[in-house]
Every structure is written in C-alpha cells, then in structure tokens.
C-alpha cells in the first residue's frame, strides 16, 4: 500500500508537470503569432536576397497596441492587421491589407475600434471582432461604419456622411424628444437614447424599428412615423453614433467640421444680414462683407468675431459666443458668399421681427426641439393613435383656446396630464402628457403657449 501510494504520488507529480507544460504551450501558441508569421513571409517575398529574407523572418513575434488614453481604449488590432499603414500592402490578403482613405484619422492617434467597433483588447479573431458573449459592440457591418463619424463629429455636417446630419435633423424636428431623453433632455415615455449606440442592438433592428416600431418591439407605444427607408437609415446612423463616451479633448475639439454649409446656417441663425450686406444686398449698418476674407487676415477676422471691440474700438457688433470651429465655418461661408445667395436668405424674411414674433418663433423652436411635435404634429394637428384616450388619438392643439385659458395650458405643460379615458374600464392609454417643469424654464413654457395662441383657429360661428 505504501509503495502504491508513492507511485501514485510520483505519477500525480508527473501529471502536474505535464499540465503546466500544456498550459504554457497553450499560452505560447496564440493565433496572432500564426498571423505574424504569415505576414513576415509576405514581407520576405519582397526582399531581394536570402540574407534580407532571413532577417525579416527572424523578427520576433510581438503584440502591437495603440494606447488611446483620450478615447479610453487600447487597440491591439494591428497585432494581426499588420499592413494597415503600409501602402505596399494595398493588394495583400486580409488581415494584412492596407487601409486606404484614412485621411487625418491615422491609426496611431485613433486606433481602429472607435470607428469599426469590436474588442480592441482582444488578441484572437473572434474576441477582437466582438463575436463573443459579453462584448457589447461587435464589428459594425460595412454599411454602417460611417455612423461612427458621429461619435466625435457631434455637430455640423460630416463630409461624406449626409445620413448623420439628416438623422440628427429628423431627431430634432420630428419630436423624438417628446418621449425619449437624450443627454438629459426629453420625455420618459420611451427609453433614454443617450447611450443607444453602445447597446448591443443590431443596426438592422434599429432600421426595421424605425419603419414599423411594432414589428420588432411588440406592444411598443411608439407611433409609426411613416419614415421612408432613407430616413430610417439616417436615424439608424444617428442612433449608432450615440455612444455617450467621454472623448478626450483632442477628439472632442473636432466634433464640428468647419465647412461653408454650416457657416451659412450660422449666418442665417445669427442674423448677420440684419446689419451687414454682401455685394450691396442686405442692411447697411455694418460693412459690406463681399470679399472680406481677402481684405483681412484670417486671424484678424477670427479676433473680430471673438471680441469686436478689441479689434475695432467703438464697434457696435455684438459678441457672439461662437466656438473655434464655428468661427472657422462662418469664415468659410463668407469666402464663398454671393449676393444671389444672400438675396435668397433675405427673401425668407419678409419683415423685421417684433418682440412678439421673436417670442412665437422661440416657442415654435421649443415646440419642435423638446419633441412636442412627435405627438401633437408639426402643424399642431395631433392625430397620433392613442388607444382608449378620448377620441382614440392625441388631441389637436389648433382649438385649445376654446377649452382652456393660457394659464391652464401652461399648468398642463408644467405638470403633465394623463389623458381622459374614452372607456373608464378600458386599459391605460400608452401615451400621456409628461411633466416638463424640470426640463423647461417657465420662460420656455410661456413661449410655447405664445406659439400655440398664435396658431389658434377660431371655430366658425354661425
């Protein structure tokens, strides 16, 4: 028995040794080493002589990684994707192919996963591509990669990605915020969309959801907005870009790309034409802006926009709180502005605005921006289905002054309201008026009421 036990001890010790060797072998033969060997062979083919070939092949295997503290990630993708920055690898097989058209987005500054998704820390294929359990963002399909541009470029136009601009525009104008919160602002009938892009939701799911909400999410309270396929794609792009990540200052400083289109938008928004003219078209209070970019240096103009009085004492031009890229965009527009274009801008403004007009316009903006239009309609027509609410739909606001005073309406906006029931024993209607007092200031709510009253249609009296 004792002898047998000693033999067992000896055998178990050998087994333990074998297990350690097995574990070490397992640890020492990761798949990335195989990829690096094939890459070296590919590289060696280009070498002129045997000595150079041998030198290339003797390169020790090593994990490549890009530490991106600003993006809070470490990308090890280049451990296998070795030719990403090497133009001679243009026609190489994957995973070694050169990445063309990167522009300023060099891998050493941006890594890979910020655009492509996947798991940057991983060093095996399935793990890195995120096709594993418990990794929320697998690689984005080719059709949707450009949505990632919106992770950094959060404002203005993103060249080459009109979907993002359009999606953002749809979101802000179709009243999505009436039900959904984004960055803390919005209703709470639907889910908060602040980190929607970081959820493990297939882009196709989102797209189908926008086309027919009920088809993918049974019993969803979300009305069918009858979006076109293009619009659904645009909104999907926008949703995918909403990852709520903390981008380092290097990345967030470029969130707005200074292009003339955005500059024109600012030119209209800030109402520059109220004082300035372009080629004689416009007001005469300020100097004519045609060719202003050739008359002054960019630096001078930029300074002028930041602090007009400093550059030109006694200037009556107000200080506009524009950030660096917004100023660049404005200057880009001024470089291309023509009298015809300004005429076009002017033609939309028929007369000077009175304070009442300003209040109503602000109310209209709020009505759209905070999502009231989602249920009450862009023309206050209402009509979104709301089963078992009185009338079976969200009420039109065109005749609200017949039944309520302005103060009553303000109270309803402030405190919210459950809709009166059609059938008191029936189910609770899915949609209700949320309370806005924590989101909107009293000033904002009053403006909305002003807007509503400006649109009231008196009932025909006969």
């Amino acid at each position, binding site marked *: 028995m*004792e002898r047998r*036990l*000693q033999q*067992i*001890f000896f055998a*178990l*010790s050998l*087994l*333990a040794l074998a*297990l*350690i060797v*097995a*574990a*070490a072998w*397992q*640890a*020492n033969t990761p798949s990335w080493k195989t990829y690096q060997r094939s890459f070296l062979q590919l590289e060696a083919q280009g070498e002129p002589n045997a000595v150079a070939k041998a030198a290339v092949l003797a390169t020790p295997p090593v*994990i490549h990684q890009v530490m991106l503290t600003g993006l*809070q990630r*470490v990308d*090890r993708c280049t451990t296998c994707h070795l030719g990403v920055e090497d133009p001679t690898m243009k026609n190489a097989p994957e995973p070694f192919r050169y990445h063309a058209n990167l522009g300023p987005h060099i891998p050493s500054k941006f890594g890979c996963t910020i655009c492509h998704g996947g*798991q940057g*820390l*991983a*060093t*095996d294929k399935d*793990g890195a591509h995120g096709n594993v*359990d*418990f*990794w*929320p963002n697998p690689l984005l399909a080719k059709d949707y990669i450009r949505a990632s541009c919106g992770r950094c470029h959060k404002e203005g136009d993103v060249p080459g990605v009109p979907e993002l601009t359009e999606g953002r525009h749809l979101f802000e104008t179709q009243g999505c915020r009436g039900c959904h919160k984004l960055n803390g602002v919005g209703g709470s009938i639907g889910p908060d969309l602040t*980190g929607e892009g970081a959820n493990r939701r297939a882009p196709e799911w989102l797209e189908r959801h926008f086309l027919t909400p009920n088809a993918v999410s049974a019993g969803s309270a979300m009305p069918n907005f009858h979006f076109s396929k293009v619009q659904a794609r645009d909104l999907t792009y926008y949703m995918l870009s909403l990852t709520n990540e903390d981008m380092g200052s290097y990345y967030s400083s470029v969130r707005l790309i200074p292009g003339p289109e955005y500059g024109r938008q600012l030119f209209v928004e800030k109402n520059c034409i109220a004082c300035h003219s372009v080629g004689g078209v416009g007001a005469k209070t300020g100097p004519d802006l045609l060719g202003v970019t050739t008359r002054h240096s960019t630096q001078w103009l930029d300074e002028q926009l930041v602090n007009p009085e400093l550059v030109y004492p006694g200037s009556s031009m107000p200080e506009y709180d524009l950030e660096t890229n917004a100023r660049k965009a404005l200057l880009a527009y001024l470089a291309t502005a023509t009298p015809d274009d300004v005429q076009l801008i002017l033609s939309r403004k028929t007369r000077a605005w009175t304070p009442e007009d300003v209040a109503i316009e602000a109310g209209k903006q709020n009505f759209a921006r905070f999502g009231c239009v989602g249920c009450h309609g862009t023309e206050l027509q209402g009509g979104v289905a709301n089963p078992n609410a009185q009338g079976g739909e969200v009420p039109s606001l065109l005749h609200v002054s017949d039944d309520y005073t302005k103060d009553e309406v303000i109270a309803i906006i402030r405190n919210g309201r459950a809709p009166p029931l059609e059938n008191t024993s029936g189910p609770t209607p899915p949609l209700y008026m949320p309370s806005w007092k924590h989101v909107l200031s009293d000033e904002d709510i009053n403006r909305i009421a002003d807007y509503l009253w400006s649109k009231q249609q008196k009932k025909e009296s006969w």
Partner: protein
Amino acid sequence: MNLIREIWQSIVRRDPLSTDKGKSELVFLNVWLHIHPAKVKKENLKFRHSFYLGFITFFLFLILVTTGIALMCYYRPYPPQAYQDMKDLQFVVFMGSFLRAMHRWAAHGMVVCVFLHMCRVFYTGSYKKPRQFNWVVGVLLLLLTLGLSFTGYLLPWDQLAFWAITVGTNIGSYAPLVGGQVRELLLGGHSVGEAALLRFYVLHVAVLPAAMILLTIVHFWRVRKDGGLSRPVWKLKPAKPEALVTIGAPATVAPLQAAPASSSKTYGLMEVVSGKPIFETVTPEEEEDTVFSYPYAFVREAVALMATVTAIMTISLFFHAPLEELANPAKTPNPAKAPWYFLGLQELVSHSALLGGVVAPALMVLALLAIPYLDRNPSRRPVDRKLILWLFAFFVAVNLVLIVVGTFFRGPGWALVPPWVHVVGGAE
C-alpha cells in the same frame, strides 16, 4: 567531503530515517512538520474516515494564496482598470487566463470542500468533547471562506461581479437596525462603486486572509491538542458512557500527577505533562496499531496535495474563468443573482426579506456554532445518533435544494423557470 557532510548535518540534525528515532526526529525537529504527531493511528489515516477533506481545503487555500499573489501583480483595484486588467490577463499576460481560472475554480472548490469537511465532522460526531471549540473555530473558518469568496467575486468588475455583490449586500441590509450601516461600511457608500471595490480588495487580499491564517493555525493546533484526528466511527465500541475516556481532567479526579513510566510504552511529552493519554479510549491493542507519521501520514498528505493541484489545473486548462461585460450600474440584468453559495439565501429572501434574509441565516449560523454544546449525547457512533444525523441531513438537503432552485430554476423577475425552457427576450 567533510565540509559537505558538515553543511548537511548543520541543516539536518536527525538520525537516519531508517531508524525509529530518526523517523520521530524528522517530525519534531522540523518546524514545518512538528504540527504532526510522531506516530499516528493507522486506522485514522483511512481515506473513508476523513476523505482528507480538511487537508484538501487547506491545499486549496495554498493554491489560492500562491495564484492570488501572482494575480495581484496584474491587478489595479479601481474601475474601469480592474476590468481591463482581466482582459489583459486573458489576452496578453503569459498563462494569465490559466492563473485566473486556477484561482477561480480553487475558490469555488474551497467553498465546497469546507462544507463537505463540516458534513464529515458532523457525521463522525467529531465535534464532541473535547473538540467542541474546534468545531466553533471551523464554523468561523467556513464564514471566512464565504467572506473571501464573496469579496473576491467583485474584483473582476464585470456585470456578473457588480450585480452579484449588489444583490448580496442588499440581502445583508435587511438586518434590522444595523443592516443598512453595515452595508454602507462595507461598500463605503450607498451603492457598489469605486470605494466598494477598494474595500473589497483590501478585505480580500489583507484582512480576511490574515484572519484565515490565524484561525487556521488555531484550528490545526487544536486538532493536536484535542488528541489528534478523531477515531473512525467503525472503531468505536458501544461503551457505557462513563467508561469513555476523554482527555482534560474532570474536576472530580485527583490532582494531576506524572503517570508512572512503563517500560513497554513510549510516552509523548503531552502524556508526561498531563498524566493522561493523548488518544481517546487507548487500549494496548490499539497501541499496536500506531505507525510513524513518516512515511504513512506524509505520503498520504502528499498524494492528497498533488491530487488537489492536478484536479484544479486540469479544470483550469479546459474551462476559463467567466468574465462578462464591464460593470454597468445603469443596466440591471434580469434576474440579478448573488454568488451561487448565497443563492439559497436569495431564494429565501424572495419569499420574505426579514425571515429569509436575516432570521433564517442568523439562526443557521447560531445553530451551527452551538451544536457541540446543545448535543448532549456522548456517543459518537452513528447508530446512537440517528435523529440528529437525519436532522443534519435535512438541513444540508434544504440548503442544496434552495441553492439549486436559485441557480437553475429562477428566470427574469425571479419567476420559476426550469433551466430547459428558454425565455425569449429575457436578456433585454
């Protein structure tokens, strides 16, 4: 040659192992081995008596200490780096996932083995006089093991860890008066966050292991002082209660005096001091039955050690330690479950927070601690203890059933869902 012999003799002072004196000296001249007696009862070494569960538990603890120290070299106890370090162990540290898997599986194994060890000790009635207090120490060690496992559970900082600890500490907060404060003290706040991770880390790598080592020393020491391993139940004779010899002088007996030397018996130091035999119910026939610890006890311990190590290594080679997504306080999994050994508790809590979360576990622990003092039956033979054995078996069964139900039969919303039914949309 002389120098080499001199060096050797300066290290090893015992007689050659071929002699009985050498075998004894190997044990009591060696600081590491002298916790053993020089001679042990052959019958006590039988596998079917103790299943070596105490040893295996201790060896698992040794594995945990060594792998744990290695893991500490790669771990930063603050979020979200803690999670990234797990990924680094998996993807870039040489043998990192093997190391983590060994630590994980050894930890689960230790919880299981401590429990099984307790069951064995209960079955053989080994908590009875004079070993009552060592049972109490053992129960404390069980609680420490659970505490170590629980604090370690949070460290990977993934969804599994975050929500298991959230649920686990919530169960604790149901205790009246102090529950909330204890939870706050443990977490360093009102919810699981950075402070909680740091505190759990400190508990896991310093406070609890230190307590564990101290109590383990007491536990081992008491095993010796209480007369070594208990006799296997099959060796126990149906004796009249008063005939049972136990150590520790009863008050009625005459003052201690040195036992008269017998030329036919070797005496241990303790026997000389106390005037009492170390072993319970020592008879001359049984004296024949003793063997030297070397090699009989040591080879068995060595086999148990290697069996434990190889078992853990084999499991770790094929099964990685689990790691879910990065902890996200905004995304509650449904259902959120505590670590498996607390799922019985969570199951009880789902029926009644106060009864299940506080009263039942408190009574359970108190009952365990009090068992050696409540059980007045002096006999250790299972035939004399049928009722209490059935009661204990029932206690174990209830625990197991609750854990199994909590682990496998609870779905979203803690609804009863058999494991073979897939809940559609359960993850969302």
